[in-house]
């Protein structure tokens, strides 16, 4: 399960991720991170069965946690099933099925936004 963790760094540089790993013993996969001097936003992937535990620990450390579902959205009126998005996606979210219809593994998305730029038909958007 993908979790979007946001935290403020105003109160000091608390090692939120490291602390959670140490506390819960759950191995966390960091897929994307953006941390500047006053705030951090980290996208992590954890096994579904430990999502609750990880959430609790992070919230305990002062972070906000949001479960990522349908991170990338396709407008079926605009999409013409070309497949321009397929090869630019680092997560293999998109594929064409046997009838050449575009299909999505939306749960794999890490919000990089490359597909949004690559789509000629303005059919893809990323959860804000």
């Amino acid at each position: 399960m993908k979790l979007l963790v946001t935290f403020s760094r105003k109160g000091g540089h608390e090692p939120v991720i490291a602390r959670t790993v140490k506390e819960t013993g759950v191995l966390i996969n960091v897929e994307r991170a953006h941390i500047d001097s006053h705030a951090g936003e980290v996208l992590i992937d954890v096994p579904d069965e430990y999502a609750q535990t990880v959430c609790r620990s992070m919230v305990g450390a002062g972070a906000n946690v949001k479960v990522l579902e349908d991170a990338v959205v396709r407008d079926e009126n605009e999409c013409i099933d070309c497949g321009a998005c397929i090869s630019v996606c680092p997560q293999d979210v998109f594929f064409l099925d046997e009838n050449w219809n575009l299909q999505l593994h939306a749960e794999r998305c890490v919000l990089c936004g490359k597909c949004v730029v690559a789509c000629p038909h303005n059919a893809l958007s990323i959860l804000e």
Partner: protein
Amino acid sequence: MHKSIDLINERIRDGNARVVSAEEMPDIVQELGEERALEEVDVVTTGTFGAMCSSGAFFNFGHADPPIRMERIWLNDVEAYAGIAAVDAYLGAASDSDTQGIEYGGAHVLEDLVAGNPVELRALSRGTDCYPRKTITTELYLEDMNHAIMCNPRNAFQRYAAATNTSERTLHTYMGTLLPHGGNISFSGAGTLSPLANDPHLRVIGSGVPIFLCGARGMVVGDGTQSSPGSQFGNLMTTGDLQEMSYDFLRAATFTGYGATLYVGVGIPLPVIDIGVVRSTAVRDEDISTPVVDYGVPRRDRPTVRTVTYQDLKSGVIEIDGEEVRTSSLSSFRKAREVAGELARWIETGQMLLSMPTRTLDATRTVHPIRETAQAPRVKEIMEKNVVSIAEDEEIRTAAKNLLRGETNHLPVLNGEGKLVGIVTTYDISKAVVRPDSGPRVRDIMTRKVIKTSPDEPVDIAARKLEQHNISALPVVDESDRLLGMLTAIDLGKLFGGRWRR
């Protein structure tokens, strides 16, 4: 055996014609053999749905009162060509909006009209005795036009070169987003369903042949501009009534960093008149090869990385230099099938009859590059040849002196063999003064990854490097990295004052 077009049309009228798609035909020919396929199949339908920038439409808006001779015309702020007649225009799909840039282009105006949305017409005139009015602004729906005739100078290329990018940055091209370091491959075209790939010798496709064009009954005008069937890059000029077109088969698009374009659905029915047509329509994806071209080289003649087939491209992965590279199609094969299917339905229900070309096209024709009477300027013609440089083991202080002596902000750094290994700027020196613990030598503070140019590189390409990397000077080196000069923003100014000015 030969089957006449009249016989085929008779069968269509009687509702007895056997119509198959170009995707089904190869298996039919394999199963029945050529002779029986010729007897049984009357029509093969083809289809493609992809970005065709070279599209547009002629309009006649009707006369206003008092009348105006429209000299400049905008439709939803996209300028149309008005040098035709008083109230006529040609709107190209690839022209951009004055207000929204490439996000809204001629293609989007066409899509809006076909989708039933109103469009604002704005026109200007000097005013004449017969046409006194000088301005007009009005709102028009597609049905308000006297005529709206799509006319596409080049559509339905037989095949397209696939694209990759071995450079170090992401490129935004008319072939879509190309990731750096050969990270992906993009391609276009319907392969086995492509109209011209099913008639490469132009035996049944030619002027006057009826076609499916964006949902309307259109026809082939003749050769497309830049058509090169002699090198398997043939294309067609097509026309059809915009007022009969459907949003399902006409879509506007924007390629990021490039421009607006129109996705056009084109299908051509091929009459199965003889064994030649049976053979050419038995073409499969694996029979159609195309080069994968490196767009990382910003020149006309881009290197071919390897040759692949449409079967390879559609498989989703291609091996290049031992690495698996993912592919992306820019055209829609699902929609291409829909085009071929819809066209088949028209013929099966007797809504479209076939005809042979009224004028055949030359299948050996090829195209050539533009004749350039003056070569685009090269770096060596404007670079600064008297360059002050420094050795990498010199002290930083010496570098500062050299910068002052050369009255420059950039100092190329050379190793013991005289090869370029870095660059030092006044900014690097300032940093070294503020943070003296970085080390005493030039090599300790120089930038090692130097963006450079060569003497024969066109100035336009070097100028783009300056712009993209937000820098103001490029060392000019030969093949073995020996320093020949420097190209600075100041040198670029020479182009505007000297002999290059036209």
